């Protein structure tokens, strides 16, 4: 089971869905010689500014679908002629290691140089020869101080007796287990069978004693907004959206650290329009374009220069440029950890299955 959406719909939801549909129509109806054939892009829902998509449609024909989830099967991905897919980092790692994605034609992506170095050091693709991150986020803790009655600073606060039954957890294995590993002093970048088993046992014990209100996905923000829970595992981007309505809700990177993830563009093996895919990637790695998209999706941009561009735009954009959830400082960055993956796909799948059975998300 995987997260359902990267962003809360909140106030924008209906409008954005309509706008996206319109943009899709506009895009597919226009063609220009620069892209020879239709570019097929499969992305997460609500992950691109509809205006940007419509503008890109002026460059060539794009079949853009916002239907990606991480349980898209290999057959769906590789059998339907997608030129770009946007799996989460752990899944992209599997694709790369299994040789299921094309090497990026970097000769057509001069803006590859704008990838933030933090995304270049993953062991599965150092230097990002096979992927280009689209957006990134942090899974930390959001809470309502009026309901908790105190400051939260640690992952262990999610397991504290005074919050029993009032904590929502996100049903993403790598993020929940990753946080539990950090609480135990383990490193999610290099998970082992032993450390993940320990973390899962800790989560299961808390689950059994009724510590958690529920296991959810992006509904955590509704639970927090309505006061049904006092604290929750939380995605940074959704929390930024929630804070527009509830500025009193706080988001923290716990002292032990938090799990960072990113959804990343890959070109599935055998894609018909790799050159078009490269053109798309290059376009969205222009800091001006990327800044506009950040303004809309409000997740962490992997593009160098976005912050400066937002500052230049002024107003709300400049405020966003100073938001630590979008632009964490160096001290915070050092406390963010990407899930590194177990030794084998089978071991990871087994962990996935056991987690889903425990959380009831299977």
């Amino acid at each position, binding site marked *: 089971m995987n997260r359902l959406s990267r962003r809360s719909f909140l106030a924008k939801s209906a409008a954005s869905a309509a706008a996206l549909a319109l943009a899709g129509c506009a895009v597919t109806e226009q063609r220009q010689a620069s892209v020879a054939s239709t570019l097929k892009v499969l992305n997460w829902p609500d992950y691109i500014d509809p205006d940007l998509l419509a503008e890109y449609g002026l460059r060539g024909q794009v079949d853009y679908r916002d239907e990606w989830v991480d349980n898209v099967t290999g057959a769906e991905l590789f059998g339907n002629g997608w030129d770009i897919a946007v799996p989460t980092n752990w899944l992209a790692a599997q694709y790369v290691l299994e040789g299921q994605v094309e090497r990026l034609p970097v*000769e057509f992506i001069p803006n590859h140089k704008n990838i933030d170095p933090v995304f270049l050091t993953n062991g599965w693709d*150092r230097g*990002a020869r096979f992927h280009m991150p689209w957006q990134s986020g942090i899974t930390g803790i959001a809470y309502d101080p009026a309901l908790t009655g105190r400051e939260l600073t640690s992952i262990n606060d999610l397991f504290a007796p005074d919050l029993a039954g009032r904590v929502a957890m996100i049903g993403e294995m790598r993020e929940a287990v990753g946080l539990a590993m950090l609480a135990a002093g383990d490193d999610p970048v290099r998970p082992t069978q032993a450390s993940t088993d320990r973390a899962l046992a800790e989560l299961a014990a808390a689950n059994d004693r009724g510590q958690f209100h529920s296991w959810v996905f992006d509904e955590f923000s509704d639970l927090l907004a309505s006061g049904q829970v006092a604290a929750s595992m939380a995605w940074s981007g959704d929390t930024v959206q929630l804070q527009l309505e509830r500025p009193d809700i706080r988001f923290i990177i716990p002292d032990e*650290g938090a799990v960072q993830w990113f959804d990343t563009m890959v070109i599935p093996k055998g894609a018909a329009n790799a050159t078009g895919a490269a053109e798309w990637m290059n376009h969205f790695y222009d800091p001006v374009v990327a800044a506009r998209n950040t303004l809309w999706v409000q997740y962490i941009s992997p593009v160098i220069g976005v912050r400066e561009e937002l500052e230049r735009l002024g107003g709300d954009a400049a405020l966003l440029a100073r938001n630590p959830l979008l632009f964490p400082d160096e001290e915070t960055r050092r406390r963010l950890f990407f899930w590194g993956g177990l030794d084998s796909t089978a071991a990871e799948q087994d962990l996935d299955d056991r987690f889903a059975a425990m959380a009831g998300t299977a």
Partner: protein
Amino acid sequence: MLALVTTTLIAAAGLIAWLLSDRLVGQTELVAESTGEVLIATQQVDASFAEADAAAVSVHLAGSDGNREQRRLYELALDRATASLESVARLVGEDERSHEALRDIAAGTTRYSGLIEAARTAAITGSPGADDTLQVASSLNRDEIAPDVQVIANRARARFDDETNSSWYAVALIVLVVALAILLAAQYSLYRRFRRFVNVPLALASLVVLLMVLLAARAFFAQRAAFEAAQTEAYDAITVSEQVQQTAYRHRAIGTASALTGRSAAVELAELEVALDPTQGGLLERARLEADSDRERAGAVEVIERWQRYLVESDRLQAAVAANDAAGAEAITQGPANAAFNGFNTTVEAALLDNREQFLGNLRQAADSLRWLRGSILASSLLAAVLSWWGFAQRLGEYR
């Protein structure tokens, strides 16, 4: 009598050509599967130790707070070095001098990681001597481990040159040409004695050998071309990129150490910057010129771009050191300078990985171009010998 001599000579020539080509094929496979891999693995050892050292200094600088990211990079770099050493040990064969160097490196690695841990523990507990211990570890890396790695690299390089410059192919070709000459001479002799212009089996035997000469020449030249490409299109690029990486690691380590000691390193850093400077024909420009495809050129341009970004942070770091701003210097080192350097380093690695794949691919291509040759030479020689015997037998039958 002439029939027996001719057939025997053809068969003998075929056998000699087969033995020579077998030796050549074996040697080519050795280059592809062993020597080339050793060369690559040795370079990875070198780069991994340099990376580990730069990261270790950075972790140390973070003091009791630690720096988990750099610590991880240090551990991963050391893991990579160890894995590469295991590859070298597996592939280096009987070369006793290389094994001796490997033993020294293994012992040095144990001492090195022990010293790093001791320095780290001392830094965390605030014990005296932490900085000195770190310096000893770095010296051990630079002055003992690196030279031993170089010994293995030099010996692998010498073996590579030796194995790729074999002239067995020329001898094998000459032997096949001799076989062809024997067949033609036999034809001429029969013509002189029996006044019959064409003997079909002998003509066929000549054609078979001629075809073999042409195919073997083509295969040999393809092998030479693949070796040449491995050398000029990949290995030279690898060598320059490795020099870029080594020089940059040195720059990074000196810069980080200056933040640690509070002493300016501007002069030493400037020398390294000149060595790399793409505008003055430095290593970065050489790496760009070595690129022989649009993809590689794009990679080289990105490396230059990311180096420039790192230099901006390095200059800020030195300015903080010059202003006695220890906290500022540490913040830059741990933060933007680290990030920019990681960006540069991983981009060089990506380029290196491409070149290594190309290098090993070329070597495999060289081996593949000859793989069919052994059997073909033997089979065609035997066929030529049989046809030759048949040709003589036919003529003698007609005569009787």
